């Protein structure tokens, strides 16, 4: 794995993943969904592991206007 965050399409069966994500939240209250999202972030972050990637992901997720979109 390189130290660069992947920002090009990278998910096999992207539509299926998206549907799974919504299905996992179905029937949950806002509070339960928020908790699930927080757990999901922690699980994915641990899987990635590399601090350099995580740091880039945090910055990109902030969607700072004016930042180079590359």
């Amino acid at each position, binding site marked *: 794995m390189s130290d660069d965050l992947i920002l090009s399409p990278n998910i096999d069966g992207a539509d299926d993943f998206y549907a799974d994500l919504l299905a996992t939240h179905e029937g949950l209250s806002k509070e339960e969904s*928020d*908790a699930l999202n*927080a*757990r999901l*972030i*922690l*699980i994915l972050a*641990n899987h990635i592991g590399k601090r350099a990637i995580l740091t880039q992901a945090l910055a990109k997720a902030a969607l700072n206007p004016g930042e180079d979109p590359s």
Partner: protein
Amino acid sequence: MNKIFEVPLYPYEHSEDQDAPSPVRHQVAVIGAGPVGLAAAIDLAQQGIGVVVLDDNDKVSFGSRAICFAKRPLEILDRLGCGQPMVDKGVQWNVGKVFFDEREVYEFNLLPEEGHRRPAFINLQQYYFEQYLVDRVRELQAEGKPIEIRGRNKVSAIGTHPDHVTLEIDTPEGSYNIEADWLIACDGAASPTRSMLGLDFVGRVFEDNFLIADVIMEADFPTERWFWFDPPFNRGQSALLHKQPDGVWRIDLQLGWDIDKEIEKRPENVIPRLKQMLGEDVEFELEWVSIYTFQCRRMEHFRHGRVLFAGDAAHQVSPFGARGANSGLQDTDNLVWKLKMVMEGKAPESLIDSYDVERVHGADENILNSTRSTDFITPKSLTSRLFRDAVLDLSEHYEFARPLVNSGRLSVPCTYDESPLNSADALDGPERTRPGSPCPDVPLKDGFLLDKLGDRFILLTIDAEAPDHIEEDGVAVERIALTLKDDSTQALRKRYLGESDSAVYLIRPDQHVAARRPRYDESLFRAAIRRATGKEAH
């Protein structure tokens, strides 16, 4: 029976200084006879420097207060000749349990590394800690060492001069003045010295209150550290249960911000809370209750001319992680040898500035760690609480989340990376013994390594040649020669050699590494000695 903290341990006595026609000059004055002030004074006195400790009180600390003492401070106390009574009396523990809501989410074992003389931690009430330090002071006095504790001597004014300080001291018999070449202020978080000198103390205030109680009970709770997040008996808050000697248990209950301290402290309010926590049928006696709030902050500088600040007077942290008294002892460990060399004319006065550099670095590390613990224990926003609870929920099921649970990162000594006293690392050796690091202990044929280090510069050779003594510009360095042939536990190789076959370490009087190389080199080690004593810049 009187509690030890109710008996005057250093009652007021009339001093000859009070009758002197002009102020008597002392080498060093220390303000505050708490753990840090007493450690500073013992260190000075056992190296022959005259010291007088001034305290406005005459008793040891009231209540347990600082209770968790880490390995490095215990090693420092060994050097000060009073580690053993602390370890004999203290409670050792390795197992911790974390509870969330009504469940135990996981259990951990500190699994301390083998091959150290001292345990990772002991729990000991601060009043015992101070009593053993006072015992050591009395021992030194019996040996004729120049040390005094003056109880009920309250410093009321300080005059600062380029080469000394003047102190006005109030006593039950009126006031008198003394002078001192150097002053060490160890007078706590509310330091009157700091106020008298008009110095800053900025940082972050945490809006929270904690109730701490010492409870005596004969319950058969195991010797473990139990930490609760959001328990049924203290909803939305945290709680800690820790064992101390003499069947005394320390309980910390987070209360939140919007409370009336005086009301919460009343036994009729405290006891029902404790019954909910310990169980209705558990018999206990309440020994001491206190409520505290805390701040994380430090002075901009710990040296102000001839006045040096140490311990809580210089920096304050949250209690999570036991970094208060533990870091204060590391302050004086760092300071005293430098002061001694400067007073003896063996190093320039600028060596004292490295105390400021190194211990400010240490304070920043402690403040960072304890602030992070505080943010985990008492989340300050909904999102912060969301992630905190997510970590706790995951930790019950998955191992990966457990290192994220932060109920206090237990105190470890800091490495003085970037210190002006370090020489560049020239050994392909372990990270933990790079220049600036505190020396880790190693079991030897005849005892432990750290007992052989300290109070003077040492050249530690491992399967390497070097002279038995060197002297560089008045600084004497003595060699200790070790070999891997005696290293049956492999601890020496793992902690000091790494991939290298041989090593030579220059070790400071406070047992920190100043320089290391694979082999001895006369001119490079002489340069390293000059550098470690403030005589050579980068």
